[in-house]
């Protein structure tokens, strides 16, 4: 997986945004992720849904990037959710107790209905 395929897709839906990530998000990739998500958040989507179905690994720098983006979205009263993560990414969220902090859903549709 190359660094270029970290962000697989960015879509708009009902005033919100869906960012589909892929690959391994680690210390080598987290800055690129922050730059991309900052560009999305600058447009102030009412709801930001991050699809993690194709993310194979995420370390604390990736998790920290998601926290930074959440704080930005929360500052303008938007909503942010994570969806479709694999067991490895969920494990990382649980170890850091961020599973209790983020809204987590099974699918993008569920996240938009919440």
């Amino acid at each position, binding site marked *: 997986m190359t660094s270029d395929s970290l962000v697989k897709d960015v879509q708009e839906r009902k005033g919100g945004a869906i960012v589909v990530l892929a690959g391994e998000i*680690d*210390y*080598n990739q987290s800055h690129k992720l922050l730059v991309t998500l900052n560009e999305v958040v600058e447009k102030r989507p009412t709801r930001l849904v991050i699809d993690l179905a194709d993310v194979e690994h995420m370390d604390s720098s990736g998790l920290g*990037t998601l926290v930074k983006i959440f704080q930005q979205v929360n500052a303008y009263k938007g909503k942010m959710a994570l969806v479709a993560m694999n067991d490895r990414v969920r494990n990382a969220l649980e170890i*850091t107790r961020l599973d209790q902090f983020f809204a987590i859903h099974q699918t993008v549709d569920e996240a938009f209905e919440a």
Partner: protein
Amino acid sequence: MTQESDQSGSRAVDLSILSDPKNLGVVRAAAEKMARQEGFAPSDVDGIVLAIDEALANVMKHGYEGRKDRDIHIRLEALPGNQGRLGLQVTLRDRGRQVDPTCIKGRDLKDVRPGGLGVHIIQTVMDHVEYRCLEEGGMQLRMVKYVRDPAETTS
């Protein structure tokens, strides 16, 4: 990469990498393969891989302050179980900035903010974690994870 084994059945893999973050994935792949071979449950394999990843990122970020051309040595050593529990011992050695081992602590997770999660992850996942300043310079981190009994895994 070098591999060796002794008469007790202990097996070790040595990896020497430069402190370029692009190398993190290579070490993760080797650690995952070895942890699976040693019989760890999938969630423990994920945890071990994450802990090693965090430890290496800390060396690159803090020990070498982002320089990408410094040496890091990683030893993955299967604990044979004939004198104790089966497990995996991971030893990282660098020549970077030394830090008082007593100052290396995880932070309070109630304070939700970016950064500072790596040490918490390492200490949560691994059964034994020991930092040491090396006489010749640099730091050594020794981490051990034991294979859990099936009863422990399901409880």
